[in-house]
């Protein structure tokens, strides 16, 4: 089974802090994604990466950056956290499995910025 893990389930930070969210997948997938999920807005893509050291902006990249130094690891960075970044953050990797080619999600990190 595909396994995607995220470094924290719950995180509380203060405005202005630098925040790192880490994601690791064990299926050797090339493609990894970061989303945020908010009530009524659904999943919104922040950034994705299709290879090591490669990154592409998603729909809402402002205020975020990413890092992919190793294939299995994809980090989301909030350079200076703000209260409007309070959200559920979901990492996903995409690749082939018996179900087909699709995305597999981690458990999520619920971030609160005070």
């Amino acid at each position, binding site marked *: 089974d595909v396994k*995607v893990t995220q470094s924290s389930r719950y995180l509380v930070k203060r405005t202005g802090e630098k925040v790192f969210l880490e994601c690791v997948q064990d299926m050797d*997938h*090339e*493609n990894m*994604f970061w989303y945020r999920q908010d009530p*009524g*807005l*659904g*999943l919104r*893509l922040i950034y*994705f990466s*299709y290879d090591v050291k490669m990154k*592409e902006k*998603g729909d809402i990249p402002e205020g975020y950056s990413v890092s992919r130094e190793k294939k299995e690891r994809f980090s989301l960075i909030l350079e200076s956290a703000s209260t409007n970044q309070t959200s559920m953050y*979901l990492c996903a990797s*995409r*690749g082939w499995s018996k*179900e*087909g*080619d*699709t*995305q*597999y*999600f*981690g*458990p*999520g990190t*619920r971030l609160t910025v005070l």
Partner: protein
Amino acid sequence: QKEVEQDPGPLSVPEGAIVSLNCTYSNSAFQYFMWYRQYSRKGPELLMYTYSSGNKEDGRFTAQVDKSSKYISLFIRDSQPSDSATYLCAMSSTNFGNEKLTFGTGTRLTIIP
């Protein structure tokens, strides 16, 4: 207009009922269709994956795609309280890994014992 429209619910049905969840979409290039189930405070998990038009059945779940109407459905037979979750539809035009999926906003379903 959003590319994918999904009624957010909430939808409440009694245990044992048949549940129908739906999405409509506007992009005729979509060919790959997925349903994810997301329990409260968890990440979405893949439930069904289909290609092009037709039906796919897996246990109590049936996914249906009607590309001519740009309409997809997920049916749950003999619904159980454990089916209470948010269901998200997702779709893409290719199966290339670097193409992002387009998601619906999700339908919140509650099965009443």
